[in-house]
């Protein structure tokens, strides 16, 4: 019996015209509402075993001994693996730096690090057997922040580092350092009439995707393995998995299962290698599904950050200079820390014109949980701080905070601190104008409604803590700047295979990419692109796997741009071949075959004047056109390690928010009433999905403003709240209305003029909410999230 839940083709129906720009519905929508869509945790195989991971109970320790004998003797247990069982020379993995052990070797560096694996015939048997593994830890002092990481005699998290950053970092417990210096900040300071300084703290946020880390590894007869898994980038996983299994890449065949959200948390590997190791050892299919507790340890989080900012401005409101230092806590392993540093530093100035800047960003190695990618990726932390600074400056200058921002807003042609010119529309002032112009939600509703007032709309909600007493409204604004795509010289390409043939008398296009559909709607957009470019109504989306070239990551707001671009490019090549076939077969029937500009529309070959020359089906007959091509956006450059200069980014994304909050100042409870957003998306390929992305990103930003934070004990470096009971996520009772104003100013460098959209709304949402709470309370509030004790001083 084969794998249950193995993905099948998704066929797009014929009734939808559905090209780009239309809000076509998700092709996987019906499967998802009927419960039939196969997520990675839904996989099932006859005779499969369940894998379980034993994780360290301490943050930093030497492993003196491991005794697995009792676990191995447990009835129903098929295998127990430790570091000593790893089959290949390569025993580490990592996105950029291979510093992460598949299983701990003599030492654990963070709470929850994988130490041993168990495979058993029931998940509970595996868990109980794992609990019988005896590990003798000798605890070591923990490194938890910059001071303890760089103190004389500080324990080195990774001794003998030989990665390519070690040469330019001031201490081996610093993963990467990126300074950016432009102009002369010290000299510019003399021109400032006001100077504002601030120290800010951004808490550790969890991606909290709902579909837990999970998958199924099936050993194959050729000694390889078939892996069904939820990830953001199949080929990146493959590159890291195959070497530690000791297998060539073509013997590790990966297929994307249904992905229950990602938000950056699936860029790093989780259970992939572990499931394969157990499957290869036992010769049986092995399923691993994390529960939520384990999920909090099973993926990296958003870097918590300490940010020091200093801005100056003239009396008439022009920014003179900016100095900042951003310290990101990368935790025990590098993950995406170097790239997060690159983003935090190169976007530290935000969407403003400041010619004289002095920026430094670093990421630390500590014994805290590893941190890496999460939606917004370095730019989120910086935006929180620089937007707080903008409000402080406006207040000092007695200016309107929106007008102050507009006065200093970047535009097309502005030079970034890296020296890179922004060469596409940058409507920062316009977005602020639009979000400010939206109608305000009515004030003090509880008064006008009298006894019909609904406490559910008040801070404290159903807890019925106030009927309006002590409730104060505040309004705040913020705007952010995010890069789109992988930066700093990365070869950021994608691949698309497009096939066109006649099935049942109708031309049908099949699009095959390795793009990870994580919920964003890439599969919807690929079908729309194929319809637009090939004039067909029927499009089949082939399951994503490693049988086609890499699509790159579903990260960095890049997939519609890059894999969308690849699909468009391959469709164009297919179209050319179809037209060539038509000229060859039917060219003598009509002179326009040779002379006119030809298109594929409505299943037909037509001239640009609209004259129909042939049915596509008659051109193709029983032949198929099948083309796989790679596609690249414009190349970027690395940032200079000393000055930070370089054309490092591909494209930018801008969003602005206005937050309206009501705060119960006595209890410190915040109700976000409305979060209005205006965003430039270049071209909305699917307007319904665009709005959905903006609203979802907005609420993730709101979460870190008022509730979400992984609490790490400062003494033990242990995670205190690894559950949805203690890590608070916004529910539908917490969220506001989110009116969205979508602006479409084309970026001429991008396919269809589109702009990556997924991350920008996550940037400005947080500082807008904080600004609104400050506006309501008059408090400084230099950290996020804000909790009741920060508002009441208790």
């Amino acid at each position, binding site marked *: 019996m084969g794998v249950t839940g193995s993905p099948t083709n998704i066929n797009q129906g014929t009734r939808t015209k559905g090209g780009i720009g239309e809000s076509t519905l998700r092709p996987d929508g019906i499967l998802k509402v*009927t419960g039939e869509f196969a997520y990675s945790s839904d996989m099932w195989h006859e005779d499969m075993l369940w894998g379980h991971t034993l994780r360290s109970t301490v943050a930093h320790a030497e492993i003196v001994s491991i005794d697995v004998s009792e676990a191995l003797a447990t009835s129903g247990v098929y295998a127990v693996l430790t570091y000593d069982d790893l089959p290949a020379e390569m025993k580490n993995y990592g996105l950029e730096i291979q510093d992460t052990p598949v299983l701990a070797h003599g030492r654990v560096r963070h709470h929850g690090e994988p130490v041993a694996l168990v495979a058993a015939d029931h998940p509970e048997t595996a868990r109980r057997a794992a609990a019988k593994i005896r590990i003798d830890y000798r605890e070591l002092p923990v490194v938890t922040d910059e001071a303890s990481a760089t103190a004389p005699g500080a324990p080195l998290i990774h001794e003998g580092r030989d990665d390519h950053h070690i040469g330019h970092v001031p201490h081996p417990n610093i993963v990467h350092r990126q300074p950016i210096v432009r102009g002369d900040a010290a000299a510019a300071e003399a021109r400032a009439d006001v100077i504002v300084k601030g120290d800010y703290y951004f808490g550790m946020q969890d991606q909290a995707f709902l579909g837990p880390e999970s998958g199924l590894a099936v050993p194959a007869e050729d000694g390889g393995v078939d892996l069904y898994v939820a990830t953001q980038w199949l080929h990146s996983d493959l590159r890291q998995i195959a070497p530690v299994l000791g297998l060539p890449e073509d013997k590790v065949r990966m297929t994307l299962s249904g992905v229950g*959200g990602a938000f950056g948390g699936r860029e790093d590997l989780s259970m992939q290698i572990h499931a394969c190791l157990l499957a290869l050892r036992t010769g049986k299919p092995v399923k691993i*599904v994390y529960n939520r507790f384990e999920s909090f340890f099973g993926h990296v989080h958003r870097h918590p950050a300490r940010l020091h900012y200093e801005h100056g401005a003239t009396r008439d409101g022009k920014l003179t200079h900016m100095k900042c230092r951003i310290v990101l806590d990368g935790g025990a392993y590098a993950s995406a820390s170097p790239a997060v540093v690159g983003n935090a530093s190169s976007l530290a100035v935000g969407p403003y014109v400041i010619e004289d800047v002095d920026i430094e960003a670093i990421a630390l190695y500590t014994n805290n949980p590893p941190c890496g990618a999460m939606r917004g990726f370095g730019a989120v932390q910086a935006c929180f701080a620089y937007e707080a600074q903008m409000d402080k400056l406006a207040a000092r200058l007695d200016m309107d905070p929106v007008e102050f921002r507009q006065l200093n807003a970047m535009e097309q042609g502005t030079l970034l601190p890296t020296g890179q010119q922004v060469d596409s529309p940058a409507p920062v002032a316009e977005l602020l104008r639009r979000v400010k112009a939206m109608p305000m939600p009515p004030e003090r509703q509880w008064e006008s409604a009298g006894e019909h007032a609904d406490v559910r709309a008040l801070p404290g909600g159903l807890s019925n803590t106030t009927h309006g007493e002590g409730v104060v409204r505040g309004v705040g604004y913020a705007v952010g700047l995010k890069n789109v795509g992988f930066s700093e010289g990365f070869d950021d390409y994608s691949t698309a295979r497009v096939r066109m043939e006649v099935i049942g008398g109708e031309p049908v296009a099949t699009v095959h990419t390795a793009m990870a559909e994580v919920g964003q709607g890439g599969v919807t957009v690929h079908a729309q692109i194929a319809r637009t470019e090939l004039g067909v109504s029927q499009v089949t989306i082939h399951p994503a796997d490693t049988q086609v070239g890499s699509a790159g990551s579903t990260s960095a707001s890049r997939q519609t741009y890059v894999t969308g671009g690849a699909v468009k490019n391959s469709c164009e090549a297919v179209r050319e071949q179809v037209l060539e076939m038509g000229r060859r077969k039917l060219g003598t029937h009509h002179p326009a075959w040779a002379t006119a500009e030809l298109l594929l529309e409505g299943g037909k070959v037509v001239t640009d004047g609209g004259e129909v020359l042939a049915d596509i089906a008659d051109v193709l007959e029983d032949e198929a056109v099948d083309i796989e091509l790679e596609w690249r956006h414009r190349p970027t450059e690395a940032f200079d390690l000393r000055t930070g200069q370089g054309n490092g980014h591909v494209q930018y994304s801008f969003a602005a928010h206005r937050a309206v909050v009501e705060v119960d100042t006595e209890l410190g409870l915040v109700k976000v009433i409305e979060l209005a957003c205006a965003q430039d998306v270049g071209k909305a390929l699917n307007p319904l999905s665009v709005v959905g992305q903006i609203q979802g990103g907005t609420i993730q930003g709101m979460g870190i403003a008022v509730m979400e934070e992984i609490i790490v004990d400062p003494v033990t470096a242990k995670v205190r709240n690894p559950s949805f009971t203690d890590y608070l996520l916004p*529910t539908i009772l917490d969220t506001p209305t989110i009116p969205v104003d979508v602006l479409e100013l084309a970026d001429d460098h991008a396919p269809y003029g589109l702009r990556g959209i997924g991350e920008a709304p996550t940037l400005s949402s947080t500082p807008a909410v904080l600004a609104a709470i400050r506006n309501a309370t008059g408090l400084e509030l230099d950290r996020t999230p804000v909790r009741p004790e920060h508002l009441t001083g208790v």
Partner: protein
Amino acid sequence: MRVNFTVNGRRHEADDVWEGESLLYVLRERMGLPGSKNACEQGECGSCTVRLDGVPVCSCLVAAGQVEGRDVVTVEGLADFAAHRAEAHPGTGCASGACGTSLDRAKRWKAEPAAGDETRDTGELSPIQQAFIDAGAVQCGFCTPGLLVAADELLERTPQPSDADIREALSGNLCRCTGYEKILDAVRLAAARAEETV
């Protein structure tokens, strides 16, 4: 142990059930019904919501043995459940377990593969399922099954809910993708369509 109960109108039996297994585990791993989801397995997210004798529950918090002889509706049976309700009690809700799916209809949904066609009038979905698709309330979809069961139960009880009613009824269901706006839209849409047809 062995457990017997009705799921979506059909009798199901599971053998060799360990006493600690949840209803969710038995549905997903022993009965081939993985539609109910396992986002937290600690009763916080609502992704595993099913109807147990008509009452919405987190199936991860219900021991399988507690379900012996009882009646369960999951997302896989929601369309038939809603259709049966509409036939048996037109224009009204029906909150009791008597609203189970007929064997005939339960077989029908199992036998038919999804159309793979995103058009707006498949006729095989419940009104709330159709509204979720039409309103753009589905992104990754992992919260969707639980939300559908909860929202369907809300509309059964309160056919024309206010926004505050919707928020209260769905507050036990986490969604990480949508920011909930399109989910509100979907419930409003389903309620409005129901009103039009009455």
